[in-house]
């Protein structure tokens, strides 16, 4: 659960009020059309009652062990991510617009990978500089010339979105490797149904528990052709010390597949087997929650203890499907991000329905000049950096920091991109002092199989619990909210 892309700055935005998901720009006075019932529920339920229910939810989460581990922090080895009881809501028209944008985006990501690992038409057409792909550390050389079963690369995508106004949604990041957080979508909904059942009578809310069935159907649909109608699917986890282990076990349980570790698998003559009490059993589809680098020590990192030796050979022999395919990291790379509008246009012939955040590529002289002139307003990042390293948040930096960064930028401009700071939307949130607006982002989950693309009506809303903060990461005090999507009743 980390996206380092949400930056913090109050600088230029203080003039305009932030857009609130329930109240728009009315300053908390008038709900937006379609949000009246939710606003009324919020005021009628009252802060104290909400606080009591939220406490019950957190106790339940702790008992269930919905925790994430924090490495190196022994006492708090298992923490729960704070859950906020005030949900965020999407109306049916909002959702349908988002869905079609997400579908277009994921199709483009898939087409892009088929192409860069295949004919490289997009490079020949000069849309993207060749070295940006071929010299990229995320470009998975062993995948070149290998088409995954059914031609699908990113079976499960978690697309991070932010919003700045009623119609202003932006894609912040495409998580096309092994996106996490879907268990929160489902568990938060369970908690809401139990604690606030009246909300579900009040509003026509679409369920999210179909995700597990959809995930299973997707996995079955991408099984190697030889595996018949009832393929054996498994979820491969690094093990119970992994920070997202709860989610792995939750998904395996809900989908009804075995949760395996590398030691449970064995590759023999390019066929993957799992060790069971009845002997070994052939495996057809592996939903791996292990990074590319670790899945097969014979092909990737030789020191990996988490991987299965020979897995890639079995994959290339067409005997097993890996979900998501190795090499998807090239599509959600920061260096590629700014080309996404062109990528969408190139493969679909349409304009991107969901825009990206305006991005200046410092490799281009005009963009570099603009960035140099506006350093104090922009967020500037290394394309191959992560976790906030090599990043300048202009409005939050001193003159000295800006001057230092300027030198680094001028030395290697091709390694940097710049973006404006965003005025993230807010949602009313239960805090110490009562209910107050807090900034949010949103991660919906998109499944792509040979049976089509399915978007579960919901997702993970992350909220920055500190006042004014735009950092929603769970490792930095972020919490989660349920994300409700309304049925189209014609009068929502």
């Amino acid at each position, binding site marked *: 659960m980390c996206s380092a892309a949400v930056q913090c700055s109050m600088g230029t935005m203080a003039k305009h009020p932030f857009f609130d998901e329930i109240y728009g720009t009315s300053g908390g006075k008038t709900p937006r059309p379609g949000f009246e019932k939710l606003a009324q529920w919020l005021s009628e339920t009252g802060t104290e009652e909400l606080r009591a229910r939220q406490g019950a939810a957190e106790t339940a989460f702790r008992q269930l062990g919905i925790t994430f581990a924090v490495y190196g922090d022994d006492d708090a080895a298992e923490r729960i991510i704070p859950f906020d009881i005030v949900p965020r809501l999407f109306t049916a028209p909002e959702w349908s617009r988002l869905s079609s944008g997400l579908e277009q985006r994921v199709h483009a990501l898939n087409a892009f990978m088929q192409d860069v690992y295949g004919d490289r038409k997009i490079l020949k057409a000069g849309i993207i500089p060749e070295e940006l792909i071929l010299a990229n550390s995320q470009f998975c050389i062993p995948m070149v010339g290998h088409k995954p079963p059914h031609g699908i690369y990113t079976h499960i995508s978690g697309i991070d979105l932010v919003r700045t106004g009623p119609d202003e949604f932006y894609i912040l990041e495409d998580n096309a490797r092994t996106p996490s957080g879907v268990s929160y979508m489902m568990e938060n909904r369970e908690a809401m149904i139990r604690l606030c059942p009246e909300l579900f009578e009040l509003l026509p809310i679409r369920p999210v528990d179909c995700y597990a069935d959809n995930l299973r159907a997707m996995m079955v649909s991408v099984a190697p052709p030889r595996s018949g109608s009832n393929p054996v699917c498994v979820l491969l986890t690094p093990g119970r010390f992994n920070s997202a282990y709860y989610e792995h*076990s939750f998904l395996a349980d809900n989908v009804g597949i075995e949760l395996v570790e590398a*030691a449970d698998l064995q590759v023999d003559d390019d066929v993957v087997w*799992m060790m069971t009490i009845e002997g070994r059993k052939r495996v057809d589809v592996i939903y791996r929650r292990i990074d590319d680098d670790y899945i097969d020590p014979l092909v990737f990192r030789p020191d990996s203890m988490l991987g299965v030796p020979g897995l890639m050979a079995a994959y290339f022999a067409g005997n097993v499907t890996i979900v998501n395919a190795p090499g998807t990291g090239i599509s959600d790379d920061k260096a590629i991000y700014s080309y996404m509008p062109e990528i969408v246009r190139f493969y679909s012939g349409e304009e991107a329905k969901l825009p990206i955040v305006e991005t200046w590529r410092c490799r281009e002289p005009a963009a570099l000049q603009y960035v140099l002139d506006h350093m104090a307003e922009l967020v500037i990042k290394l394309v191959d950096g992560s976790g906030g390293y090599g990043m300048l948040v202009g409005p939050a930096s001193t003159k000295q920091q800006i001057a230092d960064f300027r030198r680094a930028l001028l030395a290697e401009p091709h390694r940097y991109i710049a973006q404006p700071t965003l005025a993230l939307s807010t949602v009313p949130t239960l805090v110490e002092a009562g209910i107050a607006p807090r900034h949010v982002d949103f991660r919906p989950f998109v499944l792509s199989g040979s049976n089509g693309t399915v978007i579960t009506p919901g997702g993970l809303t992350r909220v920055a619990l500190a006042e004014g903060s735009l950092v929603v990461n769970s490792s930095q005090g972020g919490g989660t909210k349920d994300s409700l999507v309304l049925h189209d009743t014609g009068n929502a």
Partner: protein
Amino acid sequence: MLSRTASSLYWLGRYIERAEFTGRLVEATVRLDAMSARPAGEGAWAGALAVVGAESRFAATGHAISQKHVSQFLTLDPLNSGSVRCCIDAARDNARAVRTALSRDAWESINRAWLGLHRRSKAGDTQATISLVEGVVTEARAFEGAMHRMLRNEAHWLMRLGMAMERGDNSARLIDVKYHLLLPQGESVGGPIDRDQWTTILHTVSAVTAYRWLYRDGLRPSSVAEMLILRTEMPRSLAASAEEVVLMLNAIGKLTGMQGEADRLARTRQLSLGRRHINSIIIGGLHEFLGEYIVGNAALDQAIAKQFRFP
């Protein structure tokens, strides 16, 4: 089912059972010592250590044998691998590894037991110790209840198999130690201290009332031994454990269509227990009999691990 999962489930069952047994042992010893009109003192606590085979591990702590130190050692000591805390830790660790095989209720009971002990550092006085044990016993019951409402699949049978194997081992150790070590020199069989000792055994296996139902004629060591060894109506008896192990292995065999050495050993043991009488066991040497049972149980444990390909 994955072999690794099977192993975790089996050990989950064993650890839960062991945690409860150790907890009950502490509680019964507290009764024997602190709460009794004739405190049994140090001997009672030395006996408790002997039952779980932890005399040398306790000696290594450098503490004197006393209620305070032994009950702390048996309940919360993180360095004593057999303490209630360590058993619950190990049970939860195994449960985490097999989350998918457990129902939500079953997991929650283990996690609650773990949370209950997590922040506790001292067993405390008599009352606090008893309430600690009660907390663990309550969650062990909740776990068992949840387990009985789970789907009757391999996971269910494997946990029960682990519990039955552990239970037989625990009961054998309890009878063995109490029968031989606890009767102080010069005290006549059937005297007041002897009576307290036997009541302690019954408390440990929560069978005081059961005994009265089965034997209307007062407390007699041979009757207690018979109940705990041969009576299949008594769930903690060796015979009942042996029977349960056979049933669990049969159930798994039905699902997988395979049986093996473990099934054979388990059936042999059940049959031979069914043919024994308590008098012949006592005449032949109860200690020897129990020793053989414990060794046989360990061999069966090995056969189970091999049959199900535990990693």
